[in-house]
């Protein structure tokens, strides 16, 4: 592989929602260099690729950021950082105004006010959101963009960030990127568990299959303190297409019903995890399948729904049309997805300060990769990107010059070249990925187990994942694309081990589905705390932290 060295002031890893917004903010506060390194192309990379339905985090008139904090803490069963939630909530509406100024369409009433859906949602054209953001980034000449380059390791010395290592996904190029300060904005992780449709359509999932947990894994390996990995996220989605359901539930008021036509949501509660729990229980009790009741809506509503889905998940509209059945003709069947790790919905991710700095000096985190601050959604990712960029601009002046371990970098390059140089291995990356997903599904609370697990099976999961990890060095790559798949598998395996360790420590069931322990089916007072972890000398050390 050819070596390329790049030096910048502010390195942003991941040109998604938080990363792009952070780059724009940084330019308002500093004239230093900023570089976004993105594994795909920024126009459509990450969660916003297909479009989103609405702005889910907005403070409407008559409400305050504190209301949002209270709501998010309640929904998370108390395990959420009030300080982080407040600083995020205070930024939400500001980010909406900025996006509107950049060209985002937002639905307005006759007085020019935003039309709200409930008190926290506003209606937008979500299909355009990423191209608008990417265009603003491309128009800002201070921002450098390196696309189709995958970051896989930090350069850290004495707990200070010095940059990151990356590889091109097209050509044999190994990048060493030095930076005074770094923002990790790589999003969350999918593909740890066996998905809803494990065959040909295995990537027809809700969370982007290309967000593979790189940021979490790099942090874990570098010894950063991480939080709440046991708080997995499972979404309630339309069967087969895994399309979002909020448009049906909140848009046309469709209720969750079981096969007998009974509305069941009131039986289980309405927090995010309870809604999925209800569906899982109804199925387990023989009352399934479950649906969103759309029959009886008007033809005009049918047409608007088809358009709304084209703006975020076109496959759902395709399904209605292919089947010749409108939502008014047939209820929409729903199911829970496989578990994801997503700090924008739950509290999993880096343990950070209010300035979004991680426990590694000079390394910041924002968006789905940052922990402690659930219910972030798009605008929360923007708000965190803003906070991190402002703090990073200040931090640049304080960064110390530390000598880099050149030998370590050269060894890493040789290790990668080993995969490329090896003759075709009998062990296939995809096969190991399937083994990992099956082990997580069966022993760490996947779909087939109705999301529940116990101590014994978690220990089995850990053994199996460690076994798969041991086979990793035997893999071979014919090209850079295949090398990328090996790196993605490696980061998923690293993350799986942390998820299992966290699930094992939280010996209670605080959130159904997200962390369902069948050996500890109730909440326990002693677990009113954060479960954090840190890799010390190759061992994962678990730390309980008091609520903040």
């Amino acid at each position, binding site marked *: 592989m050819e070596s390329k060295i790049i030096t910048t002031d502010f390195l942003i890893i991941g040109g998604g929602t938080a990363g792009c917004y952070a780059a724009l903010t940084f330019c308002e506060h500093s004239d230093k260099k900023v570089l976004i390194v993105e*594994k*795909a*192309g920024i*126009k*459509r*990379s*990450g969660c916003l*690729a*297909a479009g989103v*339905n*609405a702005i889910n985090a907005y403070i409407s008139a008559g409400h305050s950021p504190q209301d949002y904090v209270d709501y998010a803490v309640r929904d998370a069963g108390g395990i959420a950082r009030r300080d982080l939630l407040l600083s995020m909530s205070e930024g939400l509406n500001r980010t909406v105004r900025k996006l509107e100024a950049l060209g985002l*369409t*937002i*639905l307005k009433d006759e007085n020019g006010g935003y039309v709200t*859906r409930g008190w926290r949602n506003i*209606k*937008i*054209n*979500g*299909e*355009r959101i990423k191209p608008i953001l990417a265009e603003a980034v491309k128009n800002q000449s201070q921002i450098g963009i390196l696309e*189709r380059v995958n970051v896989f390791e930090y350069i850290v010395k004495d707990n200070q960030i010095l940059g990151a290592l990356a590889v091109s*996904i097209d050509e044999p190029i190994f990048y060493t990127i030095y930076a005074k300060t770094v923002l990790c904005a790589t999003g969350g992780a999918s593909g740890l568990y066996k998905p809803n*449709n494990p*065959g*040909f*359509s*295995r*990537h*027809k*999932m809700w969370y*982007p*299959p*290309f967000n593979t947990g790189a940021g979490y894994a790099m942090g874990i390996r570098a010894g950063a303190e991480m939080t709440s990995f046991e708080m997995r996220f499972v979404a309630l989605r339309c069967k*087969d*297409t895994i399309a979002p359901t909020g*448009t049906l539930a*909140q*848009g*046309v008021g469709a209720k969750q019903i079981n096969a007998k036509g009974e509305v069941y949501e009131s039986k289980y509660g309405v927090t995010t995890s309870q809604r999925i729990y209800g569906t899982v229980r109804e199925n387990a009790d023989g009352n399934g399948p479950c649906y969103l009741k759309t029959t009886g809506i008007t033809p005009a509503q049918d*047409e*608007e*729904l*088809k*358009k*709304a889905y*084209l*703006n975020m998940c*076109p*496959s759902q*509209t*395709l*399904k209605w*049309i*292919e*089947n010749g059945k409108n939502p008014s003709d047939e209820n929409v069947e729903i199911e829970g997805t496989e578990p994801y790790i997503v700090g924008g919905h739950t509290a999993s991710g880096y343990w950070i300060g209010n300035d979004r700095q991680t426990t590694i000096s000079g390394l910041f985190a924002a968006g789905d990769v940052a922990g402690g601050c659930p219910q972030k959604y798009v605008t929360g990712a923007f708000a965190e990107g803003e906070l991190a960029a402002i703090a990073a601009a200040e931090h640049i002046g304080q960064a110390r010059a530390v000598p880099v371990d050149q030998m370590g970098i050269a060894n890493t390059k040789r290790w990668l070249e080993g995969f490329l140089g090896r003759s075709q291995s009998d062990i296939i990356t995809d096969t190991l990925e399937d083994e990992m997903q099956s082990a997580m599904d069966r022993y760490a609370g996947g779909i087939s187990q109705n999301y529940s697990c116990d101590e014994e099976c978690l220990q089995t999961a850990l053994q199996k994942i460690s076994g798969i990890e041991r086979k990793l060095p035997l893999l071979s790559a014919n090209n850079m694309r295949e090398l990328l798949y090996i790196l993605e598998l490696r980061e998923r395996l690293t993350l799986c081990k942390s998820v299992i360790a966290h699930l094992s420590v939280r010996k209670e069931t605080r959130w159904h589905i997200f962390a369902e322990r069948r050996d500890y089916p109730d909440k326990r007072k002693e677990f009113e705390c954060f479960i954090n972890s840190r890799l010390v000398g190759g061992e994962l050390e678990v730390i309980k932290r008091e609520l903040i």
Partner: protein
Amino acid sequence: MSILFESTRCISCKKCAAVCPGSLITVDETARIEHPERCWGCASCVKECPVQAIGLYLGEDVGGKGGRMTARQESTLLHWQIAKSDGTSETITVDLKDSNKY
């Protein structure tokens, strides 16, 4: 979930390859997808193609019935065309300047 290319239409402009969030598309003579099972189904490539050479379809394992979806942009309008397996087709037009009603 995946995409199919109509090679005879493709003008090798590489626009689809540049936007795929999984960088799954390669363009030599014409565009192709080496690992169709890795497709997320986000339709970014479909919307980007200037000659409607890319059709989105639902895999049989998720109940797909052979329909294909292409998109054509005309100023701020996006015309989605769904060709069904029985030979009929349906078009839905979305104005990119409009907000969702729901």
